[in-house]
């Protein structure tokens, strides 16, 4: 009896034990092939798919952010030429030359844009030669929505191309400050076309292009130029000086007073330049990243310190701080911080700005008077001098912690103990000076033979608005 009860409990126990086992075995039995390895590999595949998806999304989000910032930057840089520079220069000339000087800037927005798309971009950023690019991207062949990994891996190639185009547009426009009030329009068009091909495109390639011998990343003389101290400002500033010397003074200079006809226009123009410069410098990070933020801050502080530097110098000399002085100082600071923006910390940025403000003040007041050249709107005094001091000080203040361009843990500039970089900067500066000097002389000779460069006396007296364009900026009788 006792044995029968025990057996009964044993059977029930067995049955209860077998229940979960059989329940577990039922689905497994329906797919015997994967029975042993399935759970582990299925999970890992799912995870890796998810990770790949996530990776793709992160890349896409970064690309979207970078592209948004770079397209905005391109538009900001265009705004520097028109209306920024056009207003800045426009206000500084006499009333009869207002439209002519504005038109010289605006013409670059048309002319250089087209030349850039045709072959300019390819000559600057195609191929990997030491001095100049090639024709691989002529007519924008191969420039599409996929990134160009040689330059900017996260933004469409088209974005990179149009961003660089805006630099090519403003650079020749800067020269017109030196030749203001006496350069004829046909000569301007020819000169700028030649200058773009002979000076700008090669210099841009040397400094920024893949394989360029001044390129900071792997060039023979690694010259630090974040946003165009040599390529944009030294090249245009030095060429401006050559043009001013070649073409001579305006009729009546320096005896006849030629005060700016509207500092209000210049004021608005300078403020637009300041804002546009954020696209110029912070955009040169080619991404919406920390380096862009660093360059943005350096740019702003450089401009601010330079406005103070110029104003204080002027206050000491003349007893007054003028509005023209303050805005000129800001522009000088923006010029000087351009090569340095993506390499220096905020405090050195202020030092660079302050130095540029004071130096450029003495360039346009003292040095110009000493030599007596008629750099009408101080294109050399501000861009040539400011670009040079900026390029050299970049070698002093560049830091690995801001931009490890020579590889992680490798010192960059003097602040890192790598004083040889100042020498590299000097090489870059001298080559930019020499290249602009020689190139411009050749171009001036050609221009003079073909169209002529300077307006004749009667045209100059009438004003370039009427004599070159057949219109007036201010038609006061209407």
């Amino acid at each position: 009896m006792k044995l029968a009860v025990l057996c009964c409990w044993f059977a029930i126990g067995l049955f209860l034990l077998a229940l979960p086992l059989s329940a577990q075995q039922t689905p497994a039995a329906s797919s015997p092939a994967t029975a042993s390895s399935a759970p582990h590999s299925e999970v890992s595949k799912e995870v890796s798919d998810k990770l790949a998806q996530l990776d793709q999304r992160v890349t896409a989000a970064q690309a979207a952010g970078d592209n948004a910032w770079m397209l905005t930057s391109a538009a900001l840089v265009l705004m520097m030429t028109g209306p920024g520079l056009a207003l800045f220069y426009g206000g500084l000339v006499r009333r009869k030359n207002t439209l002519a000087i504005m038109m010289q800037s605006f013409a670059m927005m048309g002319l250089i844009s087209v030349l850039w798309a045709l072959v300019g971009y390819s000559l600057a950023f195609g191929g990997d030669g030491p001095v100049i690019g090639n024709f691989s991207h002529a007519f924008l062949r191969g420039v599409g929505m996929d990134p160009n990994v040689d330059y900017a891996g996260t933004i469409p190639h088209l974005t990179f191309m149009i961003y660089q185009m805006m630099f090519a547009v403003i650079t020749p426009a800067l020269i017109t400050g030196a030749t203001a009030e006496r350069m004829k329009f046909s000569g301007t068009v020819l000169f700028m076309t030649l200058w773009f091909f002979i000076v700008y495109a090669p210099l841009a390639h040397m400094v920024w292009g893949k394989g360029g011998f001044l390129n900071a990343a792997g060039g023979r003389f690694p010259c630090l130029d974040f946003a165009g101290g040599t390529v944009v400002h030294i090249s245009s500033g030095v060429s401006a000086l050559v043009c001013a010397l070649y073409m001579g003074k305006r009729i009546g200079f320096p005896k006849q007073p030629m005060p700016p006809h509207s500092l209000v226009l210049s004021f608005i123009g300078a403020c637009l330049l300041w804002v546009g410069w954020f696209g110029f410098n912070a955009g040169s990070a080619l991404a919406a990243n920390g380096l862009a933020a660093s360059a943005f801050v350096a740019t702003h502080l450089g401009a601010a310190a330079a406005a103070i530097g110029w104003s204080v110098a002027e206050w000491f000399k003349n007893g007054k701080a003028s509005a023209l002085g303050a805005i000129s100082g800001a522009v000088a600071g923006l010029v000087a911080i351009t090569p340095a923006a993506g390499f220096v910390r905020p405090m050195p940025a202020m030092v660079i700005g302050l130095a540029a403000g004071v130096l450029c003040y003495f360039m346009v007041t003292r040095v110009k008077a000493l030599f007596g050249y008629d750099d009408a709107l101080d294109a050399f005094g501000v861009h040539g001098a400011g670009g040079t001091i900026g390029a050299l000080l970049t070698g002093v203040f560049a830091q690995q912690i801001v931009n490890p361009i020579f590889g992680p843990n490798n010192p960059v500039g003097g602040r890192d103990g790598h004083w040889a970089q100042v020498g590299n900067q000097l090489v870059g500066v001298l080559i930019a000076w020499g290249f602009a000097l020689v190139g411009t002389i050749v171009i001036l000779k050609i221009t003079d033979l073909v169209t002529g460069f300077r307006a004749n006396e009667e045209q100059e007296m009438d004003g370039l608005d009427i004599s070159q364009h057949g219109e007036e900026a201010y038609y006061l009788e209407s």
Partner: protein
Amino acid sequence: MMKLEAIIQPSRFESVKDALREVGIEGMTVTEVRGHGRQKGHTEVYRGREYTVDLLPKIKLEMVLPDKLVNTVVDTILKTAKTGKIGDGKIFISRVEEAIRIRNEERGESAL
């Protein structure tokens, strides 16, 4: 009839005009002019280049008056236009032969 031309400081113009209205002057012609007498100009400096501005902005008032009003007007202008500094301007008075109102061809003092 007398013609009175007064060249005054632009800053005094509103006061002079108001004072003249109070003494009954109804018509005047006003021009913004530039010139200088003994007053020296000032210098302006643009990027280190100094310009001496010696033609300074002034206001020229012109009015033709019946003889009896001339003294009152001169006194009024002297009182209101004076700041006591060099550059306050001058008053010129001359005789006028004839005045003609174009609308109805009235002549003489009644045309004023």
